[in-house]
């Protein structure tokens, strides 16, 4: 009897914690998004789904912009991270842990502080732009802060380790003999890369996209610190509706919409990539 109960007793405390403070709040948020009222008189559940229509129409620009910024961030990250993960996995040798540690160094500095550091670097009279303007290489009016370049740059910087690590793990798992076999069968290095290494690395790339697209498109720290009026992201809208204007129904509706879109995106991509992957393997 004790043997059967043991796993339940072990899971129970932590499981209840997750249930009460993760699952239930999600349900509360769904319910809040369908309520009407205000912070002073309280909210009543009325099933007022029109809040969704109004919020999405009202903040369509920010919603789409966030998804676009998130997608661009993930794409740039794949291009930037793949060569590094590839080099560490195949040529890192005994220094592999050291290189991975160096890639993870930014995580030892607070997220907000890292982003503020970028703000200092990119500011108009900062260490980067000031010398260039002095030398006459850039016009006096040139600035980076407040532009999409600065926001996406910040997102790319902050989430880079989340792309390098999963790709590295996937590449590290590849048996070198598989690549050798391809070479023995007269595949050129490029063909071996394209038809052996690349397909085998795709699960890592997918994990990396999941781990960067979700936090990047729902981020508001980078847009707030590095962006301007033209780069407002949906995270900033949700944050200020929750914390400043206490417009809970509308904020919940937007947060719920964002999460649904992200989840659908993730699953659609998994399905597309998954079947594609299987078909490629089957074709060979």
């Amino acid at each position: 009897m004790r043997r059967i109960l043991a796993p339940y007793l072990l899971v129970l405390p932590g499981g209840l914690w997750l249930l009460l403070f993760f699952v239930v709040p999600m349900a509360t948020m769904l319910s809040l998004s369908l309520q009407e009222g205000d912070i002073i008189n309280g909210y009543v559940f009325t099933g007022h789904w029109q809040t969704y229509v109004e919020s999405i129409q009202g903040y369509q620009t920010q919603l789409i912009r966030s998804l676009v910024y998130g997608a661009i961030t993930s794409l740039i990250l794949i291009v930037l991270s793949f060569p590094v993960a590839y080099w560490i996995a195949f040529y890192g040798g005994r220094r592999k842990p050291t290189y991975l540690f160096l890639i993870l160094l930014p995580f030892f500095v607070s997220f907000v502080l890292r982003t503020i550091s970028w703000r200092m670097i990119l500011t108009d009279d900062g260490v980067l732009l000031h010398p260039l303007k002095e030398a006459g290489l850039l016009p006096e009016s040139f600035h980076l802060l407040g532009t999409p370049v600065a926001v996406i740059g910040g997102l790319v910087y902050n989430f880079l380790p989340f792309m390098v690590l999963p790709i590295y793990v996937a590449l590290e798992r590849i048996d070198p003999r598989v690549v050798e076999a391809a070479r023995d069968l007269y595949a050129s290095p490029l063909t071996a890369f394209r038809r052996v290494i690349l397909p085998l690395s795709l699960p890592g790339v997918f994990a990396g996209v999941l781990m960067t697209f979700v936090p990047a498109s729902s981020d508001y720290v980078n847009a707030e610190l590095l962006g301007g009026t033209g780069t407002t992201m949906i995270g900033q809208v949700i944050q200020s509706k929750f914390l400043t204007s206490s417009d809970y129904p509308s904020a919940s509706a937007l947060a719920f919409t964002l999460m649904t879109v992200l989840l659908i995106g993730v699953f659609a991509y998994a399905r597309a990539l998954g079947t594609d992957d299987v078909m490629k393997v089957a074709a060979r």
Partner: protein
Amino acid sequence: MTRNRVLHAYTWILISWLVLPILVMIAFGFNDPRGRYNQTWQGFTLKWYGQLFAVPDLTDALIASLVVAVLSSLIAAVLGTGIGYALGRYRFRGAGVTNLIMFAAISSPELVMGASLLGFFVSMGVAPGGITLTIAHVMFSISFVATVVRARVVSLDRSIEEAAADLGATAWTTFWKVTFPILLPAVFSGLLLAFALSIDDFVITNFTAGNVQTFPLWIWGSTRVGLPPQVNVMGTLIFAVGVLIAVIVNLRSRRSKA
């Protein structure tokens, strides 16, 4: 061969880019700014290290961060170890659901988790503050601890436990004398991870802290009026301690493997 060299050089360029803002943060802890904006280099000074605790609000915020990190990582270590051990050792109904919830908790956007928790606390009539903040930090740390512990449980050589049983040890004795000591390093890594996640967290904290100021929240709130160089010094010290602990843990685990 040349291609490797290009990739090697590229790796170092990327690492330099990753380290650049950290160096800027460290450097400006030694800056002697004239106004309230610590943004342009004015001259070298060590005085901020001497006056580290001269900004009372900032010191309070750092203490609050440390208290929440200690409490939440301890609770999460206990709860997460339970889940991780059960998932790694037993096959039981509900294991799949537990896994799914953990995956969801790790991959959900922080913004949505923070916002939904605030909505939950408000509709329960609970005012956000230190307790809700700690609850939230435990919530997002549990899954990470459980994942780390489960990995160790799965890779555990069960013949050692069987040997203990053969030598007449009861299940209870075997667990505490054999299994638990083997799992302890994993529990400890999970605890460190939870501590690091907690002390760095901004988004969920911003939603659940109420009037409590943590280190990242204080920095966020003070950006517009200008950050005192003490922020850079504290950031530098947290960075140094974090790197030191990571290096020690790494060296020890490498030695024990050898």
